[in-house]
């Protein structure tokens, strides 16, 4: 019971912190989107608190950390009054509805989510990348009150995992200090909030029968589901990458600068979690340029939105890799040494691209890893291409996101050979699934059928 109370308290604080960030960025959404978004943003804010404490040499005692978290909640809520007014407007204009036929879907989704939450709480962090990196750092940070601790006295040859993002380390420190020996439960907060957000995003365009089925299909992507209770960087990275694209699509639609900036901030968070996301952010830039060109009819103006979008990612990358890792942590990390030599020879790029397709996507192993989800996407895409021959603007946006991942991951693998197909690309592909889901939710075929079903239902 006490553990439940502790988790509930931290989660509420995360909600408050996320609310502050959303208010600061002037993000206004319906409650069904806004509430899960606040929790996701709150987890992001909390992950940065131990990093800031470390930079200021504040020891990780229970008192210091609790105080720092409360302070963070207060600091990001400087526009509390505006936020409360917004919430009042938001909730007064919305009402919760649920149809009876949603129930079987929601029950299945709940059953799938609950067992993930249990395993997340019960099992210790398992992946080697974590136990030989951020988890051991967090464990000894709690014991020795600093991230620069005795793990640096251990033989670290053949290991670069302690250089990885302190996103996981920070959250693990908070949850371990709160009395959860394996930390990890923050991943369930991300998972649940993300599924709630996705469900409503799909429901916004599709009939709830299709929405329920598609979300179940998304949850049943075997490899991705496994990482909803095994802490690693990729699931969280996929969530923030998706959110960035979601708000970028919103910017393309309404041209409000706040949505572009918010998309940039979320991409920055994704880059903080996995630094190579910066390359994917760069690959996203042409979409912004095209959109700018379409609307403003000039190239020059297109540079500014690109800079707004990329600046948070660039800043976080430079700060974390160059300042925190190389000038603060006791061991040096030479990223340059990881870059492939002879980048002008693109044959390996082609090989990696073919390998990703033949091993991970269009193969028996691929079905084992990702189920039928990719094939469902491909079938719908082809059907739309052949029979409708027109994509809705939103479907185009998410298709572009799918393309960024599809070609971006092999490019990253080409530039950084350490980014292998069997492990890193396999998990990197998690980013493609929510984008595929939202493409399907916006496809004119499914939305057309949904409209007919709704019309029949309302007769």
């Amino acid at each position, binding site marked *: 019971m006490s553990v439940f109370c502790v988790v509930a308290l931290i989660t509420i604080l995360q909600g408050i912190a996320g609310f502050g960030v959303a208010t600061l960025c002037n993000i206004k959404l319906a409650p069904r989107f806004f509430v899960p978004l606040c929790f996701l943003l709150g987890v992001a804010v909390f992950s940065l608190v131990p990093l800031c404490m470390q930079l200021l040499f504040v020891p990780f005692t229970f008192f210091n950390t609790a105080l720092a978290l409360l302070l963070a909640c207060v600091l990001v809520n400087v526009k509390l009054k505006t936020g409360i007014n917004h919430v009042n407007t938001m909730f007064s204009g919305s009402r919760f509805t649920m149809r009876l036929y949603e129930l079987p879907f929601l029950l299945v989704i709940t059953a799938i989510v609950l067992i993930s939450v249990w395993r997340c709480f019960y099992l*210790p962090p398992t992946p080697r990348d974590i136990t*030989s*990196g951020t988890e051991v750092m967090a464990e000894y940070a709690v014991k020795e009150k600093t991230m620069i601790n005795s793990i640096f006295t251990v*033989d670290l*040859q053949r290991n670069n995992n302690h250089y990885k993002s302190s996103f996981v380390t920070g959250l693990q420190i908070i949850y371990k200090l709160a009395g959860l020996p394996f930390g990890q439960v923050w991943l369930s907060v991300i998972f649940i909030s993300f599924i709630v957000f996705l469900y409503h995003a799909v429901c916004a365009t599709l009939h709830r029968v299709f929405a329920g089925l598609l979300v179940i299909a998304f949850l*049943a992507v*075997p490899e991705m589901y496994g990482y909803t209770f095994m802490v690693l960087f990729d699931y969280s990275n996929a969530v923030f990458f998706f959110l960035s694209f979601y708000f970028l699509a919103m910017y393309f639609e309404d041209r409000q600068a706040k949505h572009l900036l918010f998309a940039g901030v979320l991409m920055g968070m994704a880059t903080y979690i996995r630094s190579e996301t910066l390359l994917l952010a760069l690959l996203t830039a042409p979409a912004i340029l095209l959109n700018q060109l379409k609307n403003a009819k000039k190239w020059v103006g297109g540079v500014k939105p690109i800079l707004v979008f990329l600046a948070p990612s660039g800043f976080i990358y430079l700060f974390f890799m160059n300042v925190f890792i190389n000038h603060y942590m006791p061991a040096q990390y030479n990223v340059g040494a990881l870059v492939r030599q002879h980048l002008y020879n693109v044959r390996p790029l082609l090989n990696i691209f073919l390998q990703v397709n033949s091993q991970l996507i269009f193969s028996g192993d691929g079905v084992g890893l990702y*189920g039928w989800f990719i094939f469902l996407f491909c079938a719908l895409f082809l059907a739309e291409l052949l029979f409708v021959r027109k994509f809705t603007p939103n479907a185009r946006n998410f298709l572009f996101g799918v393309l960024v991942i599809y070609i971006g991951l092999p490019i990253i693998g080409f530039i950084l050979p350490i980014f292998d197909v069997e492990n890193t690309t396999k998990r990197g592909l998690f980013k493609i699934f929510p984008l595929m889901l939202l493409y399907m939710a916006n496809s004119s075929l499914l939305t057309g059928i949904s409209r007919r079903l709704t019309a029949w239902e309302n007769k």
Partner: protein
Amino acid sequence: MLLVLGVALITGFFLLPPNSAWLKDRIVAYYRDFGWQKNKMGIEQRMANRFLGSYTYSKQISSFFEQKKIKPIATVLVPPTDYFTLHGIDYHVPEPLVFYYYTGLHTVWPNSPYAQNAHWYVHVTNRKIMIDSITNRAAYSDTLKALNKFNIRL
């Protein structure tokens, strides 16, 4: 009508081969695991259940130093996994940082530049894990040479 359609769609989805396997091998199996997991809440039990021999053998090695009260200053050479397999012991040897996470003990691989600094070494005699202090440096160098013939698997 839509309720029936919903149930039919969910049933159909989980009848597809990879989905039914996922449901059976993951979700249903996880709920079955929950039955016994909820009665085994000890941290050591949970660690041992998750990491199996990798954890239990590492703790066994570490407890030797705890009993002798020499743990903080000991650096221990642990042979690679293949060495233990050859001697009939199913022990996936964790790398030094993971070993440190499990036990708080400093270990080194035989191929490490720090292997020469080890004070103790682990070996197998009569299918039992033994720990000895390094007294004869020449003999220890031979041991290192022999152990370096084994591949190190992470």
